[in-house]
């Protein structure tokens, strides 16, 4: 390592990021791990969750002049504390240390952030607007024109200004993205450079382990600090157990701090309302524990299951440099999205076939490995329930969804061979573990449609507390308030009636912004 690089890194370590406690208003962060006694506090609005939707709602409500308290289950891991590996990320910032899986057949990994900033701290910062026809299709689910493409447009505009959304710059793309784009074009596909929330990205390839340079504009360095500056408070490392309801109205959030000395009771009273923004997996459980007995609660869970493919190319790829995800191909008629995803070595380990010496031969070639993935806008619906291990997702892609995944995998493998792959690793049971020639691509036509044959992952989740006009088929009304409890609001993707076909953070934030403005406008007088 050169002295120059060392100097640069040491210089960087002295940089203060917006989540530095010294830059935040005094007393605005209450760390549950450091508490010595219980908490009994009060605010106008209590927001549960500090991810894309919760942080957005916090900014809107705090800047509208309301007293806001955000309650987050995970810790606040500061940018200066981020490690550079999945080991540190999974242990400190990912729900269940990345061991949570779906039930119902195949174990599909459920990836969610569990820290201040939520999944925005560990995702690739992709800012894609949901297609207009998808959003406008929500009318048919009883949303009338409450959420339409036209209504969301100004919110998208505002978010893009606030969070510095722009396309990945060519010099920061990295080879994994460049090769994908070039090959897609060669095969007649239309690659798009991904737009992301970032300022001066350095291409460290570590979006998914926490951006150590603070360039990624996740909620932990943007909207949460901004909300705190507008007077909000955040309680981290507080597990919310329930929402108190009195006289049909939400009155407080009750939970406990995961303090070092043991669990301590926490209660934050809400003068005007409780806003749930805990994700499509956790929100239904909180509503259920609040006593909500909607027949639609926990139903209609939707996702974008994804499968990745790796290949050893005939040229260096260096996935450790460049945008983690910088290029994609949208195939809406097939309900597919092909995309790049730079795997750090510790993730690549799980996707390279083999055990022992045969595995090590391939892994030692990491510098030449490429990783791309297909996401399916799945039609399958699942449910979210509560089990012994907490909130649980029962979900399996349908046969039709798997046919789509298979088609996407074949396309990716074809692209990889066109890019000069010497070996392609499909990673599916029933297929050869290594393909060495494009003549073998037809194996995908015979590959199983059983999800158990694949190593799948979901990180985009929707539904389970749908919005709609009919209380029999939906949980949340068109004012973002639950049908059955007044003053209890939902602003996260659990209210979405469909999935999107693109990465959801941008749409989640736009909907949360719209919802929070409506909640602020309709806020009842203090009781």
């Amino acid at each position: 390592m050169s002295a120059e690089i060392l100097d640069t890194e040491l210089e960087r370590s002295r940089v203060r990021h917006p989540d530095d406690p010294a830059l935040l208003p005094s007393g605005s962060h209450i760390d549950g791990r450091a508490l010595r006694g219980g908490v009994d506090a009060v605010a106008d609005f209590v927001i549960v969750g500090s991810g894309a939707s919760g942080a957005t709602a916090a900014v809107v409500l705090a800047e509208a002049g309301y007293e806001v308290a955000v309650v987050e289950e995970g810790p606040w891991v500061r940018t200066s504390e981020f490690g550079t590996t999945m080991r540190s990320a999974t242990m400190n910032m990912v729900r269940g240390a990345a061991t949570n899986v779906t039930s119902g057949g195949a174990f599909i990994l459920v990836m969610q952030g569990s820290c201040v900033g939520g999944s925005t701290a560990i995702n690739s910062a992709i800012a894609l607007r949901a297609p207009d026809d998808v959003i406008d299709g929500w009318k048919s689910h009883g949303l009338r024109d409450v959420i339409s493409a036209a209504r969301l447009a100004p919110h998208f505009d505002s978010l893009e200004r606030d969070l510095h959304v722009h396309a990945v710059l060519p010099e920061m793309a990295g080879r994994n993205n460049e090769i994908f784009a070039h090959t897609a074009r060669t095969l007649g596909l239309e690659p798009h450079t991904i737009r992301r929330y970032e300022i001066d990205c350095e291409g460290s390839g570590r979006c998914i382990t926490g951006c150590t340079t603070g360039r990624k504009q996740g909620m932990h360095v943007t909207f949460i600090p901004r909300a705190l500056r507008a007077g909000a408070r955040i309680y981290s490392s507080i597990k919310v157990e329930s929402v108190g309801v009195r006289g049909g109205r939400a009155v407080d959030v009750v939970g406990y701090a995961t303090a070092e000395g043991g669990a301590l009771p926490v209660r934050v009273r809400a003068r005007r309302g409780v806003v749930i923004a805990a994700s499509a997996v956790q929100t239904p459980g909180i509503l259920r524990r609040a006593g909500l007995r909607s027949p639609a609660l926990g139903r209609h869970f939707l996702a974008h299951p994804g499968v990745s493919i790796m290949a050893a190319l005939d040229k260096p790829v260096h996935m450790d440099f460049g945008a983690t995800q910088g290029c994609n191909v949208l195939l809406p008629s097939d309900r597919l999205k092909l995309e790049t995803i730079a795997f750090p070595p510790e993730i690549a380990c799980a996707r390279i076939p083999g055990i022992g010496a045969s595995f090590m031969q391939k892994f030692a070639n990491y510098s030449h490995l490429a990783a791309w993935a297909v996401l399916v806008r799945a039609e399958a619906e699942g449910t979210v329930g509560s089990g012994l291990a907490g909130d649980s997702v029962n979900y399996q892609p349908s046969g039709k969804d798997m046919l789509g995944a298979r088609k996407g995998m074949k396309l990716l493998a074809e692209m990889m061979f066109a890019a000069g792959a010497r070996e392609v690793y499909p990673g599916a049971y029933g297929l050869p573990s290594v393909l060495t020639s494009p003549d073998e691509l037809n194996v995908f036509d015979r590959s199983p449609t059983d999800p158990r044959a694949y190593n799948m992952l979901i990180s985009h989740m929707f539904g389970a507390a749908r919005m709609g006009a009919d209380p029999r088929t939906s949980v949340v009304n068109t004012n973002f308030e639950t049908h059955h409890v007044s003053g209890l609001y939902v602003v996260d993707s659990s209210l979405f009636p469909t999935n999107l076909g693109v990465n959801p953070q941008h749409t989640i934030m736009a909907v949360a912004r719209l919802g929070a403005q409506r909640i602020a406008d309709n806020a009842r007088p203090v009781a």
Partner: protein
Amino acid sequence: MKISVVERRWAHLIFDTIFPRNAHPNLQLGAEDCDIEGYLDEVSRVWPAFSLLALRATLLFVILATPFVLRRPRSFAAASPADRERVLDVLYSSPIYYIRGLVVLMKALAGILYGSDPAVRATLLRGHARSLTVLTAGGAR
């Protein structure tokens, strides 16, 4: 719920079988060169109880399955490195989903340890990421 001393010994053997030493001229480090004990401590502390139970069941399953796979009364610990690799390979490609799923879980777990190790990364990564890895190695532990 702690991982016991015996289970830790099994984990060492399994991790080392997945990531053996001296398997490639450019990558001579094996899992045994990594901080397995510290990692297992971390897993014990952070993993949800249900996941930890699955991990312990996986360790036990591999040990119990060894004589059946090898078709002779040999424990995993007493088996040669080649036989251990064969055991894991057979389980890894089992037609029974739950069996191969267990080994996939074990490989993913060991992979997080191995691929996150600063020395392994220094071998695999190019300058930019390598420099950050070395400088922040303390935070990664």
